[in-house]
């Protein structure tokens, strides 16, 4: 490690949501770092806290009902949680940009595509209208939009899902952000269009040298895009490792279970018409979690120790962390 701070450092972040009189944690004690030029994937199932974590970095947690209870979020060493709203507004869009799953939710249906892309450079970089429009056109070319001149004056509903996601990416990149947060960027897309968008994201990542925080549930997308991976379960990080190390030799039973539950193409080692490995049961809702490991009720390796005490996230192997008392007993995935 060098003396320079990492691009992004999240330290002991805890976020909770209030419903009625009860406050339940959505994210508990999450820490990680991300360097420039690196892609860190956050994987987990619904309710694991992966999206809440990415929204917290943007300070977009709706408050109320949400609240960041503890922790620090450092961008180049500067604590974002200590900023006032207008300073944070300057960082959003300028230094940090975000891409969501459903492009239509981040596009204004009554504004042309060109105006929307130009808006961010006008606001953040103070360019005039003509310059901004030219910049918007350049951005459309950069995201390999077919017939870009014509697209500038079209409305979002006139475009396909894949093209809309390109527009959102163009908007995100308009101010050359140093951190790009992509929350399920290809989940709503068809597989052939997903391949195009992933390809585009790879190209852009190498051009920008930005850090990418990729939130996804798809381990295939993780393997294609990520350098390192955080596995979330019930609001906590249960495993953190370089992507190869994680896929080859997961050290947490939940990660092992996810890999086993995923159907694979037979040309890629899958088996046809056999039972998939199941993880029995469901993710425990916040509030019904015991003092021990949250995964224990669904875990084949669980012992009394697991039910009594939360295992710490510890290094099990160079750069490979897991929160499990039984990491050494896990078998390698089939």
């Amino acid at each position: 490690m060098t003396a320079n701070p990492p691009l992004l450092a999240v330290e002991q972040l805890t976020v909770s949501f209030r419903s009625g009189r009860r406050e339940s944690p959505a994210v508990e004690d999450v820490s990680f770092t991300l360097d420039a030029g690196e892609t860190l994937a956050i994987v987990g199932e619904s309710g694991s806290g992966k999206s809440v974590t990415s929204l917290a970095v943007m300070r977009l947690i709706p408050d109320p009902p949400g609240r960041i209870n503890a922790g620090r979020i450092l961008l180049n060493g500067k604590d974002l949680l200590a900023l006032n709203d207008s300073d944070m507004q300057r960082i959003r869009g300028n230094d940090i940009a975000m891409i969501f799953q459903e492009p239509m939710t981040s596009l204004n249906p009554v504004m042309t595509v060109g105006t929307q892309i130009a808006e961010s450079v006008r606001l953040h970089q103070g360019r005039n209208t003509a310059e901004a429009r030219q910049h918007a056109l350049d951005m459309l070319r950069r995201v390999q939009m077919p017939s870009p001149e014509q697209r500038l004056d079209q409305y979002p509903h006139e475009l396909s899902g894949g093209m809309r996601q390109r527009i959102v990416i163009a908007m995100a990149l308009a101010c050359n952000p140093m951190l790009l947060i992509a929350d399920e960027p290809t989940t709503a897309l068809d597989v052939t269009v997903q391949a195009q968008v992933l390809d585009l994201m790879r190209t852009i990542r190498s051009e920008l040298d930005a850090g990418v925080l990729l939130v996804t549930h798809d381990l295939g997308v993780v393997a294609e895009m990520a350098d390192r991976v955080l596995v979330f379960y019930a609001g906590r990080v249960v495993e953190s490792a370089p992507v190869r190390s994680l896929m080859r030799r997961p050290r947490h039973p939940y990660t092992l279970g996810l890999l086993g539950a995923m159907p694979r193409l037979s040309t890629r080692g899958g088996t046809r018409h056999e039972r998939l490995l199941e993880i029995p049961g469901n993710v425990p809702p916040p509030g019904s979690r015991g003092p021990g490991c949250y995964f224990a009720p669904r875990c084949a390796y669980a012992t009394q120790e697991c039910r009594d005490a939360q295992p710490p996230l510890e290094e099990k192997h160079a750069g490979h962390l897991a929160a499990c008392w039984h990491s050494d007993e896990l078998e390698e995935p089939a």
Partner: protein
Amino acid sequence: MSSLLEVRGLSRHFRAKAGIVGRLTGQRDDLLRAVDGVDLDIAAGETLGLVGESGCGKSTVGRCILRLERPDAGTVVLDGRDLAGLSDGQMRSLRKDVQIVFQDPMASLNPRRSVGSAVAEPLMNFGMTGTRLREAVADLFARVGLGRDQIDRFPHEFSGGQRQRLGIARALGLRPRLIVLDEPVSALDVSVQAQIINLLIDLQQEFGIAYLFIAHDLAVVEHISHRVAVMYLGKVVETAPTATLYRAPQHPYTKALLAAVPVDDPDDSRNRVILQGDLPSPSNPPSGCRFRTRCPLADPYCAEKEPPLVAADEEQHAVACHYASTGPLPQNTSA
């Protein structure tokens, strides 16, 4: 092979109305050919996977088989009877042979009624009452892995995976010969998805039900299907036994689709063929072969003549492409 279900020449067209501005400027309504001449066969106890991207017409095929849509042309023959020609009343009695499970089970459950009554409803429609009905519902709950104590609960008390179990219990009640499964696991998390896929495989083995499994996830479809049909813009472009389709696909679209699936191996070094462009609009499909606008093999002949679905070398394998071959697909040069 004798078929339980035989679909021939199935077509379903929708009229996409021109808006008020369109009509004032003399624009005509568009005819959207969602399904355009589809043939399918499913044997008793068999799973046919139907794959394709959004808008290819795969769900409409399923809905036409159940007569939730009335087909514009073609026949749907179940066990020798043509469903397409039946009146609604006649169709009702046949519904016990064909059932459907949707992607979002919440949309098919009444939030104000207990889940037990939702599962009981089809049984009551066919005259079951009293203790027999209660026993049958309890059996169904047990069979899909739900507890007897959950019968009187309401839909919002169930997780996504449990709701899908309810959807399956409800479809299973009348002991149908065929269940149309329309994206049954695509809204579920991967650990729960595995539970539902396993349940479907178990139920098929126990009851010998045939499935039409409609999905966009190629790995899931391969896992569960005996045979697979690939659709593109309202037409079947390739159909084959699962092992053949995935090991030796012949249609360029099938090859591209398989190449686009992300694989959980960071060292995977496939020569990825990335298809250019998006699916064209089904209201204005390209002339000739509908895939030609995105196909790396297309030439002027493909624009002229539509390739028919013809038998390939192997048994039960059919492809609709003038240049079908088992070789790898060349990378698209235009970008």
